[in-house]
């Protein structure tokens, strides 16, 4: 459940770049109401106050125009006596309004300036009077106000939207609209709020209405509610040559051969020949830049390339560009490069600075929705600007392609009766529209693919959820070609009939592998409905023109039956989960993702958590409670509220305990700040928690987390495609709500770590590695899988089954299905923990798992590299708190706990990787016992090695030259002097003579005790004596070495 948030938030990065040169500006009109006059300063423009508008005293006792909330039928504001053509400047201009909004205003929209009147005429309206003049207003967006300008161009009108900002604080603010035929900008309180570039120069068409300050010209009136102190309209002189940014202004350090593009527009009214354009980087003038000589016809534009040096130190650099006698300064930012960081993705977007501060590394913001055309400079530049903006806060950009809905009305899925399905859905199997979709993807890649901070794209989300077999002819033909037979007559929807309702269904529920309905649904889900092949095509198209590191992804990838191939050939699959009712369920749903990727071992896997809960599941509005929580006062009608911090924390540890390529979150407004979105910001502690974990766990240990392999699946839970098709009651579809998921929780609480496997894994031979196979709700199997399970048992494997299991499989341990009671999370947890304990009791004489705990609330999970184990421990001790606990549906509050984890292995040393120290442990026989003490909702990560770490050495040449790369070789030995065959987390710092931390450092993972790191001191850094500081994040020991750096 994700809705795109299309607000592109503040671009602080560019604010110090696009310096407005106001020295040549000339005042056209100025109203200084603070002087106690309504007359324009130069007496050129006269007007009268309308309605209840007065010249009075503001909250500070100063004179100002006082406007009150008015009805749409009542005119207000200062109305000019006549139509002054000067009040619609023909060239570049600025309009600045100093205003104060009534903090209690209920208004949703307020006009500051208007002479356009018909602010947003329909495109078919060709009446020129509807397309003249301009207006400036503020529109409410949640708790913020969005500046807007509506401009008339004679035959058409355009709307420009700024970024919403908080202006409701009862203080004065200034909104400045800067307009030139090439671009439009909003500045609030002097800071750039929004900038948009127009590829075709446009001048405004003179207004045909008198100008009004503080209201609309005519009905429906929309008066300002507050006070206006000053209004200034200024003309900006036209230039013969306009120099502006012609490409991205964001660069990443050490990217190869970057170029800065400069746009030259000839506005002189004549052809320019031998125009010399030169440039210099102000902060690094020693770098030679080429001089271009061009001929430019009048009105024409040329894009020129200047090299950018990516070996400079990170920061803002100013290009001083000169063309004839015109000079312009454009700044670019060189961002520090990322070294092997662990992606933390916000599925959505918002304030990049705030996201970055919490620890997010990526955000999704659709650029493909702009219908990018690499030949359309305006659209491309605006898209690149958005990437630049995000990069300035160290957020990398991911696109979201969702143009499928645009074609679904033309290519809908068709029911058996020939009519489109009521829940309209795109017939992805139809090849006809593919070329359009592929072209859009290629254009997106071509327009933005060169930007190093444009790193990935979501190829599709959620639309497939409503996919159903389509009977337009395409799928019938394709299935006939595939199978040689027609689609079975029983097929009408995505769901097969229940086996109970199929006449002659094999009574022992073991079906032939080519059972017709099974064969059809297997085909349909894998390729037949067209989505997976289309994903592959879109992914391929996006890879044209993007870097090798660019990744495509698809979610929700397991909202399908358990069969490999979801997402097609996308580089990464993902899926979101809610943390209620039990947050370790996120571990279970993550295991489903790993199972799905089993068919494509090169595919990356990420896992998303919803930052919010559905209100009716945790705190139903129709149920009154004693001691209602604080948030209820402000958000009584909320449908979605923030999840609890402890749930999110447990879920996060559950995710990173698995080998993932990154994690994702959705629900910006439930985590970061209220925006007016339906996901309400009801728990500010969530962001505090997440920031703490990203800073102290994910960032330092991220490279290690990405590298530690999963263990072989000693225990596995089968999710069966055949059962999902014919008895879907217990099928997961990625939700983790069913018995199949709950037994996974029971096993986690019993200190097992079951993998999830599919039938394809079994046919691939995975049972050779499995010791215990769990078959919850497996009502139907194919003959070959049935035989494989029998063989597994005959070879000594242990099966845990329930009363639904196909009767031909004799379970070694039989359990009763526990049906989750959503109103009783404590009762359900107690029952499932008891079940887990009972399974362990029955299994222990026959099978020993790698670890055991005396505390079922401590959930362990182990990943292993050679002889080193990485033990994650997660504190799942929870109770009902005062956030939503009053409703009794979620135990949302964590409690501290402690216990001992017994590992079936000998250990030489145990390290706590979150506190960077060696810890004490006990040895008994072949076991090692680790004491664990965890705060509420917390987790921990221990490294268990055969031998303690010994010496760490750092080797490199003693000397380096600015701008030249050297290798730094780090080796970690064990206490016997041998290289430690372990994955070791390290922190590496490069310090300049001022002890400032330089780029290229960060966090690393030394594989088998060794890593070689490239270090390039920046060209414009200080030469002298530098230091290289390496810290072993396992034992906390540090090594310092010196480096002499010369120019």
């Amino acid at each position, binding site marked *: 459940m994700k809705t795109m948030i299309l607000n592109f938030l503040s671009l602080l990065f560019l604010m110090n770049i696009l310096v407005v040169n106001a020295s040549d500006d000339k005042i056209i009109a100025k109203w200084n109401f603070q002087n106690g006059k309504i007359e324009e300063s130069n007496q050129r423009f006269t007007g009268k106050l309308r309605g209840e508008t007065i010249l009075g005293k503001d909250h500070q006792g100063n004179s100002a125009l006082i406007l009150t909330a008015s009805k749409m039928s009542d005119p207000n504001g200062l109305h000019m006596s006549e139509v002054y053509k000067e009040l619609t400047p023909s060239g570049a201009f600025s309009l600045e309004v100093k205003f104060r909004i009534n903090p209690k205003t209920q208004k949703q929209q307020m006009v500051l300036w208007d002479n356009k009147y018909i602010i947003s005429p329909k495109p078919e309206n060709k009446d020129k009077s509807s397309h003249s003049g301009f207006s400036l207003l503020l529109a409410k967006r949640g708790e913020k106000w969005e500046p807007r300008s509506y401009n008339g161009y004679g035959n058409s009108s355009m709307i420009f939207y700024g970024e919403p900002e908080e202006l409701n604080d009862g203080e004065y603010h200034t909104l400045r609209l800067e307009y030139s035929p090439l671009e439009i900008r909003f500045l609030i309180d002097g800071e750039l709020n929004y900038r948009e570039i127009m590829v075709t120069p446009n001048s405004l068409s003179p207004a045909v209405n008198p100008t009004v300050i503080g209201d609309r010209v005519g009905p429906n009136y929309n008066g300002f509610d507050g006070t206006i102190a000053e209004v200034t309209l200024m003309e900006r002189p036209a230039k013969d040559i306009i120099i502006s940014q012609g490409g991205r202004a964001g660069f990443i350090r050490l990217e190869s051969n970057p170029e800065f593009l400069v746009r030259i527009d000839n506005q002189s009214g004549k052809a320019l020949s031998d125009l010399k354009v030169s440039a210099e980087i102000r902060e690094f003038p020693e770098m030679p830049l080429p001089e271009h000589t061009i001929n430019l016809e009048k009105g024409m534009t040329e894009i020129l390339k200047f090299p950018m040096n990516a070996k400079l130190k990170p920061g803002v650099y100013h290009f001083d560009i000169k063309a004839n006698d015109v000079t312009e300064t454009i700044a670019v930012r060189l961002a520090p490069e990322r070294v092997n960081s662990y992606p933390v993705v916000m599925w959505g977007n918002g304030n990049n600075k705030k996201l970055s501060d919490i620890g997010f590394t990526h955000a999704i913001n659709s650029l493909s929705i702009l219908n990018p055309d690499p030949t359309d400079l305006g659209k491309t530049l605006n898209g690149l600007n958005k990437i630049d903006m995000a990069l300035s806060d160290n957020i990398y950009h991911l696109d979201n392609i969702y143009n499928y809905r645009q074609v679904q009305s033309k290519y809908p899925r068709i029911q058996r009766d020939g009519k489109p399905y009521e829940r309209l859905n795109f017939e992805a199997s139809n090849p006809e529209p593919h070329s359009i979709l592929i072209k859009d993807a290629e254009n997106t890649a071509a327009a933005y693919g060169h930007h190093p901070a444009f790193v990935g794209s979501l190829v599709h989300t959620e639309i497939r959820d409503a996919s159903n077999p389509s009977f337009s002819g395409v799928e019938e033909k394709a299935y006939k070609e595939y199978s040689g037979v027609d689609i079975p007559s029983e097929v009408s929807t995505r769901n097969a009939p229940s086996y*109970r309702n199929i006449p002659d269904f094999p009574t022992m529920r073991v079906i032939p592998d080519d059972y017709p309905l099974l064969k059809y649904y297997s085909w349909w889900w894998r390729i037949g409905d067209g989505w997976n092949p289309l994903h592959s095509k879109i992914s391929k198209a996006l890879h044209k023109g993007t870097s090798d590191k660019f990744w495509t992804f698809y979610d929700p990838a397991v909202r399908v039956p358990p069969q490999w191939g979801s997402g097609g050939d996308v580089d990464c699959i993902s899926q979101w989960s809610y943390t209620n009712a039990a947050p370790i369920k996120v571990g279970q749903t993550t295991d489903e993702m790993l199972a799905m990727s089993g068919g494509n071992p090169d595919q990356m896997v990420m896992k998303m958590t919803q930052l919010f809960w559905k209100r009716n599941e945790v705190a139903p509005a129709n149920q009154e409670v004693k001691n209602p929580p604080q948030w209820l006062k402000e958000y009584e009608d909320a449908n979605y509220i923030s999840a609890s911090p402890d749930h999110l924390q447990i879920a996060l540890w559950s995710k990173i305990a698995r080998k993932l390529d990154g994690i994702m979150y959705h629900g910006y407004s439930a985590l970061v700040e209220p925006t007016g979105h339906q996901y309400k910001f009801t728990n500010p502690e969530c962001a505090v928690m997440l920031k703490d974990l990203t800073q102290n766990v994910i960032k330092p240990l991220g490279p290690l987390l990405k590298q530690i392999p999963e263990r072989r699946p000693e225990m596995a839970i089968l999710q069966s495609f055949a059962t999902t098709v014919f008895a879907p009651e217990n099928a997961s579809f990625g939700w983790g709500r069913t018995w199949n998921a709950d037994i996974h929780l029971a096993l986690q609480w019993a200190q097992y770590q079951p993998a999830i496997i599919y039938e394809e894994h079994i046919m691939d031979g995975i049972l050779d590695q499995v010791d215990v196979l769990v078959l919850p709700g497996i009502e139907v199997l194919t003959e070959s899988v049935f035989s494989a399970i029998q063989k597994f048992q005959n070879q000594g494997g242990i099966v845990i089954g329930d009363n639904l299991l196909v009767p031909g499989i004799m379970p070694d341990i039989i359990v009763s299905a526990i049906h989750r009671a959503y109103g009783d999370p404590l009762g359900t947890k107690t029952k499932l923990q008891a079940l887990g304990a009972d399974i362990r009791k029955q299994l222990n004489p026959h099978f020993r798992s790698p670890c055991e705990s005396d505390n079922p609330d401590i959930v362990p999970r182990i990943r292993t590299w050679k002889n080193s184990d990485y033990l994650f421990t997660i504190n799942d001790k929870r109770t009902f708190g005062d956030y939503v606990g009053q409703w009794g549906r979620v135990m949302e509050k964590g409690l501290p706990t402690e216990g001992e984890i017994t590992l079936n292995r000998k250990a030489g040393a145990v390290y706590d990787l979150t506190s960077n120290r060696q810890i004490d442990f006990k040895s008994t026989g072949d076991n090692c016992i680790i004491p664990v003490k965890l705060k509420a909702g917390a987790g921990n990560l221990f490294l268990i090695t055969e031998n303690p770490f010994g010496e760490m050495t750092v080797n490199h040449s003693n000397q380096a030259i600015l701008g030249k790369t050297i290798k730094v070789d780090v080796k970690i030995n064990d206490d016997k002097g041998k290289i430690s065959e372990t994955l070791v987390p390290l922190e590496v710092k490069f310090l300049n003579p001022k002890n400032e931390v330089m780029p290229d450092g960060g966090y690393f993972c030394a594989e088998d005790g060794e890593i070689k790191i490239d270090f390039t001191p920046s060209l414009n850094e200080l030469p002298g004596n530098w230091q290289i500081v390496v810290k072993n994040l396992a034992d906390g020991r540090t090594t310092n070495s010196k480096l002499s750096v010369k120019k």
Partner: protein
Amino acid sequence: MNMKFFIGVLILSCFWQSCTSTKADFKSKRIAEYTPQRIEQIMTSSSDAVERRTAFRQLLNSSKAENSAEKYLNDDDPIIRRSALYYLIDHHGEKSVDYMISATTDSSNLVRALALSGLTPYSENPSVQSAIDSMEQKDPDPNLRRQAAEINWPFKRDNKLLRDDPSWDYEIVTQKSIELSDENWRFITDPNSNGHRQKYFDPLFDDSSWKPIKVGNWETQGWPGYDGIAWYRIRFNAPEKIESNAVELLFEGVDESGWVWLNGVYLGVHDIGTAGWNVPFRLDATKEIKWGQENILVVRVLDTVEAGGIWKPIIMEVLK
């Protein structure tokens, strides 16, 4: 430390010593313990269920399978009894009918369930039909009673609710709730369970001879002490079409099982045995509802103990 535990620890210690060579170690060493001599010993004297089942599996894979299957049909462990019965069904088909009929009265519902499944293909055999009928009437497990009944029940329907749709990830809001009238119901008892053959569910069926009844148990409305099947019919007008994602009928209380038709189309069943008398249930009627028209709702009710009937309101919910 017993021997098996010791061996387990040994195996695991080998595993940790040499991680890559462990895949088959655990299982092959485990199964190697089940020698023919030890299997007999385990089957006779072990109290460890996992051990006995493993041993029995080995027996079924041996030359002694046939005898073992028959021998252990009466084992104390229902899993072993079921596996023994399965072996006989699998190997002898219809010839194992007597074993299956006998198993319909087994103390374990797992065994009875297998027997019922095994008998289904032979339901035309009178003795089989009799056993199925007996299960329909008397089986202590309501699920098995229902499954037995469904063998002869001609109406099938997978009724899926919006809230159970795995593709639906939105809050479900009830846009409108329309409570059906407590009155205006027509009612008839069906002691021989023939109503469905007489098409009581058909909208065109003439129910004028049926008796009026209100929502509430039938015992207090003229049918005291009646246990068995009865039918309800009501006509109600649906509003003009409301844009929605689903329409559901919420039955707040039917004592104790109910089969439902709307406008002649079978919607589904609520049948969880006697416990169902006070358990609300919902059925999707999105495709069957006739907006702005008269609709005919028909409910077949089974009551086996004490009071019976539709005794709480039925609500049409329009969901967005």
